[in-house]
C-alpha cells in the first residue's frame, strides 16, 4: 500500500504536478541505487555518476543553475550514503549567491553538510550570508542564519557576531521568526569565539527579552542565556538581572499560561520550561532573596505535587501488538511532563537547604515510585536523579528504604539501567553502610557480565580504599577480583588508585600510594618476574598517560606518576621518545609542592640514567633550578 502511494507520488511529479524542487535526474539516480542488488553494484553506479558530475563541473560555463543544483543534490545523496565527496565545493558555494530560491537553498544546505569543517570554503560564503541576512526577504535571511547556526565557526564569528547582534539589539521590525534564529546564531558563534560579547549591553537586553511573550523567541533566548552561563566567562553575578524575569516567565508557564499551539500534548512549552529551570541552577543560592526563594519553592511544589494521573506513562503494548493512538499520545505527554519534573528536581537539589523539606520528601517519594515504573526510561532517569539527590547526605534517611529495589535493578537486562543502579548504590555509601553494600555488590559481581564487571570492580575497590580502616580487608578480597580481571593484585590496586586520583584525589593518603609503589616494585611476594615486569610497564604507562593528558594534575598524582616514571619509564614502548618522557615530568615541575618537586627531580635524573640522550635536557633543567 505504501509502495503504491510512493509510486503515485512519483508519477505525479513526473507529470510536473505541483512539486517544487523536483528534479527528475535526482529521482532517477536514487531509484537506480535502490535497484542495485549488491554493494559493489551500488558503488559502481555511484562512481559512474560522480565521474559524470566531475566532468560537468570541470566545464562551468555550460552549466545552468538548475543543473548545478541537481548535481549538487546528487552529491549530497551520495554523501549521505557514506561516500566521500571531495569535489563540488565551489559549485555549492556559487549556488549560495544564486538568485533563485531553490538554488540558493541547495547551496546553503550543501555547504552546511559538506563544508562544515573546511574553513577556507566557509569563508567564501560570508559575503552571501551577509547579503542575504540584510536582504529584507525573510526566507533568504532564514537560509543564511540557518547556515551560520549550523556551521558557524571563528571565521563567521569575527565578521558576523556584531551584525547578528544588531538584529536583536536594535529596534528593528524583524519578525520573531528571524530573531529566534538570530539568537541561536549568537549562541553558536559565542561558543566558538567568545570575545565579541559585551556583557553590559547584553545584561539589559536579555533581562528584557525574558519579558517577551513569543514562546519561540523565549526558548531561543533561554538557549543563548544558557550558553553564556555555561561558558562561565563572566562571574554569574553579572547576570543577576535576568533572574526575576526568568522566574516570572516560568511561574506563568507552570500555571498553564501558554498559547495553545505551543502546548505539546497539553504540556505548556516543555522545552522552554526546562531551559528556564536550568538557567536558575547556574546561580548560587545565596543570590536568591527570600521572596524569590519562596516563589521558587511554591513553583517546585506545584510541579512535583501534580496528580500523577496527569503524567503517568501509558502501559506498554501487549506482545506483538502496536500501541493505540491514545496510548502513544499519552506516552508523549508523559515524556514531556517527566522531562520538566526531573529538571525541577535538579533545581530543588541545587537549592539544598533552602528547598522546602516537604518538597524534598515529595521528590524522594516520587523517585521511589519511579524505580518500579513500567516505563524503562523513567526507571533510568529515576535512578540517575536519585543519585544526584543522594549527594545531599540528609536525604539518605528517605532513600535508604529503597536499597533493595535498587539492588534489584542491578539484575535488569538493560545495561543502561544496571549502570545507573550501580552509580546510585555507590552514591548511597556511607561509613555506616558501605560494607553491607560492598558485600552485596561482590555477590552481583560473581553473576555479572563483562560489560559491567570492570566498573563494578573499580567501584568496589574505591569504596574499600575510602572506607576500609586498614588494608586487611582489601588484601583478602583482591585475589578474587584480580583473578576475574586477570590483572593481578597489584594491577587492580594501582588501577584503583589511579581512578581514585582522578575522581577523589584528596582521599588518597600518602600511605595509599606508597603501598602502590611497594606492590608495583615487587616487594609483594608471589609474583613471577614476567608478571612483575608486566605490572611495572602497565603502571608506568598509566602514569605517562595521566601526566600527559592532564593540564594540572593533583599533587599526589604527580608524586606517584613521577616516581613510577622514574623507576619504570624505561619499560615504556619504543614509540614513546625519551624526550617525551622527560617533558611529561618537566612541564609539571613548577606546580608541585616542595616534596613533589624533589620526587620529580629525582625521576628526571633516573630517566637520564636510563637514556643518555637526555643529558642536554636534564643538565639545563638542573642548572635552571639551581639559581
Amino acid at each position, binding site marked *: 500500500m505504501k509502495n503504491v502511494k510512493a509510486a503515485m507520488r512519483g508519477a505525479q511529479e513526473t507529470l510536473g504536478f505541483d512539486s517544487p524542487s523536483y528534479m527528475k535526474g535526482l529521482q532517477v539516480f536514487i531509484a537506480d541505487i535502490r535497484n542495485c542488488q549488491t554493494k559493489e553494484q551500488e558503488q559502481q553506479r555511484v562512481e559512474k555518476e560522480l565521474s559524470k558530475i566531475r566532468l560537468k563541473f570541470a566545464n562551468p560555463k555550460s552549466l545552468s543553475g538548475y543543473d548545478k543544483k541537481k548535481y549538487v543534490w546528487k552529491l549530497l545523496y551520495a554523501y549521505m550514503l557514506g561516500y566521500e565527496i571531495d569535489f563540488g565545493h565551489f559549485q555549492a558555494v556559487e549556488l549560495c549567491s544564486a538568485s533563485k530560491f531553490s538554488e540558493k537553498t541547495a547551496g546553503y544546505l550543501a555547504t552546511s553538510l559538506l563544508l562544515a*569543517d573546511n574553513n577556507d570554503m566557509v569563508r567564501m560564503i560570508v559575503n552571501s550570508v551577509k547579503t542575504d541576512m540584510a536582504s529584507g526577504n525573510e526566507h533568504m535571511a532564514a537560509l543564511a542564519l540557518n547556515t551560520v547556526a549550523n556551521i558557524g565557526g571563528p571565521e563567521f564569528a569575527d565578521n558576523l557576531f556584531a551584525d547578528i547582534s544588531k538584529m536583536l539589539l536594535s529596534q528593528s521590525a524583524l519578525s520573531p521568526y528571524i530573531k529566534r534564529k538570530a539568537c541561536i546564531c549568537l549562541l553558536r558563534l559565542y561558543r566558538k569565539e567568545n570575545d565579541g560579547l559585551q556583557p553590559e549591553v547584553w545584561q539589559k537586553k536579555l533581562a528584557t527579552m525574558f519579558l517577551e511573550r513569543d514562546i*519561540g523567541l523565549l*526558548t531561543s533566548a533561554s538557549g543563548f542565556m544558557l550558553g553564556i552561563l555555561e561558558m562561565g566567562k563572566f562571574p554569574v553575578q553579572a547576570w543577576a538581572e535576568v533572574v526575576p524575569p526568568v522566574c516570572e516567565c516560568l511561574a506563568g508557564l507552570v500555571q498553564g499560561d501558554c498559547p495553545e499551539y505551543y502546548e505539546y500534548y497539553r504540556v505548556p512549552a516543555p*522545552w522552554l520550561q526546562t531551559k528556564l529551570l536550568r538557567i536558575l541552577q547556574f546561580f548560587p543560592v545565596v543570590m536568591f532573596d527570600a521572596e524569590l526563594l519562596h516563589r521558587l519553592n511554591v513553583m517546585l511544589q506545584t510541579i512535583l505535587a501534580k496528580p500523577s494521573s496527569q503524567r503517568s506513562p501509558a502501559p506498554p503494548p501487549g506482545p506483538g501488538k502496536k500501541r493505540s493512538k491514545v496510548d502513544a499520545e499519552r506516552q508523549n505527554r508523559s515524556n514531556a511532563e517527566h522531562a520538566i519534573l526531573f529538571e525541577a528536581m535538579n533545581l530543588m537539589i541545587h537549592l539544598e537547604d533552602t528547598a522546602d523539606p516537604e518538597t524534598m520528601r515529595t521528590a524522594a517519594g516520587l523517585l521511589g515510585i519511579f524505580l518500579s515504573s513500567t516505563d524503562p526510561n523513567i526507571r533510568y532517569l529515576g535512578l540517575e536523579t536519585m543519585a544526584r539527590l543522594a549527594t545531599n547526605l540528609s536525604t539518605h534517611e528517605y532513600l535508604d528504604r529503597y536499597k533493595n529495589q535498587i539492588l534489584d535493578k542491578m539484575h535488569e537486562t538493560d545495561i543502561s539501567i544496571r549502570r545507573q543502579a550501580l552509580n546510585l548504590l555507590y552514591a548511597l555509601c556511607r561509613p555506616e553502610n558501605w560494607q553491607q553494600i560492598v558485600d552485596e555488590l561482590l555477590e552481583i559481581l560473581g553473576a555479572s557480565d563483562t560489560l559491567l564487571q570492570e566498573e563494578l570492580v573499580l567501584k568496589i575497590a574505591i569504596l574499600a580504599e575510602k572506607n576500609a580502616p586498614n588494608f586487611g580487608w582489601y588484601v583478602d578480597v583482591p585475589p578474587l577480583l584480580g583473578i576475574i580481571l586477570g590483572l593481578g593484585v597489584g594491577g587492580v590496586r594501582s588501577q584503583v588508585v589511579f581512578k581514585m586520583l582522578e575522581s577523589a584525589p584528596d582521599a588518597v593518603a600518602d600511605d595509599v600510594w606508597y603501598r602502590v609503589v611497594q606492590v608495583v616494585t615487587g616487594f609483594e611476594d608471589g609474583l613471577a618476574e614476567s608478571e612483575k615486569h608486566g605490572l611495572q610497564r602497565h603502571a608506568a604507562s598509566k602514569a605517562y598517560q595521566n601526566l600527559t593528558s592532564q593540564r594540572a594534575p593533583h599533587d599526589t598524582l604527580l608524586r606517584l606518576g613521577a616516581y613510577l616514571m622514574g623507576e619504570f619509564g624505561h619499560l615504556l614502548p619504543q614509540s614513546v621518545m625519551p624526550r617525551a618522557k622527560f617533558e611529561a615530568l618537566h612541564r609539571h615541575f613548577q606546580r608541585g609542592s616542595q616534596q613533589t618537586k624533589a620526587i620529580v627531580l629525582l625521576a628526571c635524573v633516573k630517566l637520564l640514567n636510563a637514556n643518555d640522550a637526555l643529558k642536554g635536557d636534564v643538565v639545563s633543567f638542573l642548572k635552571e633550578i639551581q639559581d
Partner: protein
Amino acid sequence: MIQFILLISRQGKTRLKKWFVPCPERDQFRTIKEVSSLILSRSPKVCNFLEWRDYKLCYKRYASLFFIACVEGNDNELLALETVHHFVECLDRYFGNVCELDLIFNFHKAYYILDEILISGELQESSKRAVLHHISEQDAMMQENEQAKRKG
C-alpha cells in the same frame, strides 16, 4: 546541544544524517557504524538511552527507521526524544502519513524540515503549526521560481 541526528534503517542504511559539530567524513562513517550496531542490537523492551563515549544516545524506532539523537551529558534526555518525535510528526504532516520511501526519494525536503526544527543542535521551533507554515512558504517560493523558469 544535540551533536548529531541520524536516521538508520533496520538494515543499517543511512536515510538522513546531520552533524552539528565539525566531523570529518571518515569519522562520521565510523561513528555511524558503531552507533548503528550498538542500537540495532538493543532489545525492544529496554530504555531509549545509551551511554556512548562522553555522550548519550537517545533513540526511538518508528516503523522501519531508527531516529537517533546524540546529546551531551547535561542535556534533557526525555526532551531529546520528544524533539525527535516532533520532527517525525512534522514529517508526517508534510508528507501525509510518511513512510521510509518518502524520506528516501525526498531526502532534500527532509533536510529543509529539519532545518526549521533544529539548528546548531538546538530546538528552534516547537510548534508544529509554525514549522509547517514556514515550510509551505518556502515551497511556494521555490514554485514561483520554477514557474518563472518554465515561462522564460
